[in-house]
């Protein structure tokens, strides 16, 4: 068995079909014209981590347990990141695998073949026991255990919402010093941050000397540094290794630098970053250093104004090139089994540019098409062109024009009551003993169920009626243009099946294109003001809406036209030639016509039964 998989996060069928019709997608277009293309039904909700996990397992979130980017603890309603769960052990708090459902990678290993999954979401921490070689994707934290917070150092104090800020003090003409905060370490006074001193010297308009710790790096203003390896002392005979990149963004009016979030050093990781160690070492040594953060394309820095559009795109370009290098390196060693890699720069680029710089986005589609041609060329070179090749995406993309503050809607419609605030500055919070429903996560709405939630009040007899009522009212919600804000509301039992279904949200909210839950809703917050707010953020497009509005794509070097209704559930079958879960494949007599009896009578009448 030989299966090559290329994952393009957020590759949108509408964009592809438009560009292909214009003759701009020669490689993928060729596959499409040979019937090797189909839109792909994606799971609900169509969120990256949920969708790729559903693709890898062939099952919906009810069977793998990742329902939304944000989950809640029903006991106290506290939100947490679903793909970065932790567990307290005698050694302290450690990361645990976000799911353990069988993937097709694992199945391939058990069939006796090697399997490699690179940059696939929710594969951190590594699980050496399952035998799949991994470099994890989305969900891999920075060395602080966060999903990625960078540091902006400047000679002028500025407010940053999403990045750490540090002041650079002038120490001479064109010379500045500051401190880069590293990972948290134990200190007498509780928790402190390990630090590295930073010295900056403006040599001329084209060159800046940066001394960080004992390392000297020469930087060109506006250009990213190579990956820098840092070592933070973290107590007696113990140190924490990290990697980052830095960019000098200003040297005239003020001096500013931006450090990418400090990332796990793959060769010196305390947590199980990837597996096996030889695989990581080989990639690092043969292909050069690579960023390890699950979301390395620093959208926070762009949104925060720490870096420019061009600098962000240059970072994306560099990440893409590095991943390509690693992927081709792995292809060269590929003899059998499954080799998969996910390329997610397009997702980040669309988030930031789809709404106002379509040409930038188009450029990335063309770039991915070119990459497909390179992969095909390599396969031909290796005599593997007839082996299984799958190219797929986890969902499409749509503009994000309006933010929906769903908890505000719940308050306005009497489903949520607010607790009395101690002061006007205090953020609004729910009065749980008077709240029947709450929203948390980008597509999730929960009832405040008695016996399930810590202060639940909705009894079993009222559940069904309340869910119906909410669904009806939510579907009636209109936006500024008079159109529906929400195109589908799905009950838990309609969309989730499997052992974890009971843990999922009670309603999955499918926003209409143009709308998405606000970030505040994602965290369960209740902002004051209107329910619908125009989105003026740089982050102007998204996919966390109705799954039917953002199908993914699948390309293959086989005829896909004979596989009707292709969905995420079919990917293990297409990858391995066998199913991991067959519950969705009902025999024709069970899924076909209601008039099965008439059919049987006809066949008997004709003498065939």
């Amino acid at each position, binding site marked *: 068995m030989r299966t090559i998989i290329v994952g393009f996060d957020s590759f949108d069928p509408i964009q592809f079909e438009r560009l292909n019709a214009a003759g701009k997608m020669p490689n993928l277009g060729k596959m499409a014209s040979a019937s090797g293309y189909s839109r792909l039904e994606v799971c609900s909700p169509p969120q990256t981590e949920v969708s790729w996990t559903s693709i890898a397992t062939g099952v919906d979130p009810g069977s793998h347990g990742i329902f939304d980017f944000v989950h809640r603890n029903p006991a106290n309603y506290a939100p947490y990141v679903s793909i970065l769960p932790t567990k307290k052990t005698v050694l302290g708090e450690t990361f645990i695998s976000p799911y353990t459902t069988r993937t097709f990678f694992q199945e391939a*290993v058990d069939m*006796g073949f090697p399997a490699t999954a690179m940059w696939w979401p929710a594969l951190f921490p590594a699980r050496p026991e399952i035998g799949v070689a991994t470099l994890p994707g989305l969900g891999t934290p920075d060395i602080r255990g966060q999903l990625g917070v960078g540091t902006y150092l400047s000679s002028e104090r500025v407010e940053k919402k999403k990045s750490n800020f540090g002041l650079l003090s002038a120490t001479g003409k064109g010379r500045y010093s500051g401190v880069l905060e590293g990972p948290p370490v134990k200190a007498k006074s509780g928790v402190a941050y390990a630090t590295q001193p930073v010295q900056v010297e403006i040599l001329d308009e084209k060159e800046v000397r940066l001394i960080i710790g004992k390392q000297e790096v020469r930087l060109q203003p506006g250009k990213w540094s190579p990956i820098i390896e840092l070592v933070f002392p973290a107590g007696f005979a113990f140190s924490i290794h990290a990697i980052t990149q830095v960019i000098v963004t200003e040297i005239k009016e003020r001096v500013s630098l931006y450090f990418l979030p400090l990332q796990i050093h793959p060769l010196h990781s305390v947590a199980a970053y990837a597996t096996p160690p030889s695989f990581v070492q080989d990639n690092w040594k043969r292909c050069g250093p690579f960023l390890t953060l699950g979301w390395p394309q620093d959208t926070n820095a762009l949104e925060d104004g720490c870096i420019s559009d061009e600098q962000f795109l240059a970072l994306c370009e560099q990440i893409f090139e590095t991943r390509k290098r690693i992927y081709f390196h792995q292809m060269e060693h590929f003899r059998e089994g499954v080799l998969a890699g996910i390329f997610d720069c397009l997702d980040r680029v669309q988030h930031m540019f789809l709404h106002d710089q379509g040409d930038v986005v188009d450029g990335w589609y063309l770039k991915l098409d070119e990459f497909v041609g390179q992969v095909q060329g390599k396969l031909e070179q290796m005599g593997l062109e007839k082996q299984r090749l799958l190219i797929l995406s986890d969902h499409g993309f749509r503009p994000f024009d309006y933010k929906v503050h769903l908890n505000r809607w719940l308050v306005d419609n009497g489903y949520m009551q607010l607790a009395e605030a101690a002061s006007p500055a205090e953020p609004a919070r729910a009065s749980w003993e008077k709240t029947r429903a709450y929203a948390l996560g980008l597509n999730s709405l929960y009832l405040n169920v008695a016996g399930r939630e810590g202060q639940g009040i909705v009894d079993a007899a009222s559940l069904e009626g309340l869910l119906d009522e909410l669904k009806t009212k939510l579907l009636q919600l209109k936006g500024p243009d008079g159109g529906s804000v929400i195109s589908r509301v799905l009950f838990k039992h309609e969309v989730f099946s499997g052992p974890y279904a009971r843990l999922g949200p009670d309603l999955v909210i499918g926003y209409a294109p143009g709308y998405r839950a606000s970030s505040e809703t994602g965290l369960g917050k209740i902002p004051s003001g209107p329910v619908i707010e125009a989105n003026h953020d740089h982050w102007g497009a998204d996919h966390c809406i109705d799954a039917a509005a953002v199908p993914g794509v699948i390309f293959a070097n086989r005829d896909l036209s004979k596989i009707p209704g292709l969905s995420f559930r079919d990917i293990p079958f297409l990858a391995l*030639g066998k*199913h991991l879960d067959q519950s969705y494949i009902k025999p*024709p007599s069970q899924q*076909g*016509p209601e008039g099965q009896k*008439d059919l049987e009578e006809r066949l008997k009448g*004709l003498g065939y039964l």
Partner: protein
Amino acid sequence: MLRRLFARPTEQDKTPKPMIIVSGLPRSGTSMLMKMLAEGGVPVLTDELRSADTDNPNGYYEFEPVKQLPQHKSGWLADGKGKAVKIISALLEYLPGDTHYKVIFVEREIEEVLASQQKMLARRDESSGIDDAAMQKQFEEHLAAVKYWLARQPNIDVLYVEYGAILADPEGRCREIAGFIGRPLEIEKMSAVPSAHLYRNRAK
């Protein structure tokens, strides 16, 4: 490592000669295709219990035990490897999953299928309690369900052939079928069958 050494399926595990199934809706041209295969040199599994008649002057090429598939009686399949057998679409789901099948699925305009079925029902003195429009809808749903299911069976390869295309270009379709089942066939003899069939139908 141990798993790699011992778990891998070997070439011997794969059925060397898959069973060839001719399928489709009743009256879609499955008997014609069976005769084509027989003429082409493929051994066919038939008991000839249902003899030729006005509806199928060349014979039905049926095999009575096929009807017992829903009762999980499939011991006869052991004798069928490498042979062709006719199984209507409604019975495909009962095929045991441990055998490799190559299904040649004949597709024909449902209006034509229904018209042919009505004639046959009349000759058999059977009444139809359901009108053609309702039956058409049910057949369409049935075919969609069968295709969805077939596409997801790892042990089944499917070739869809259109009845009209066989009549229009017998040789081309015969070559396609030969390629699909992976063995040389007597294309000339095989492709003479639909021509004769067409001549017979025109002569009526």
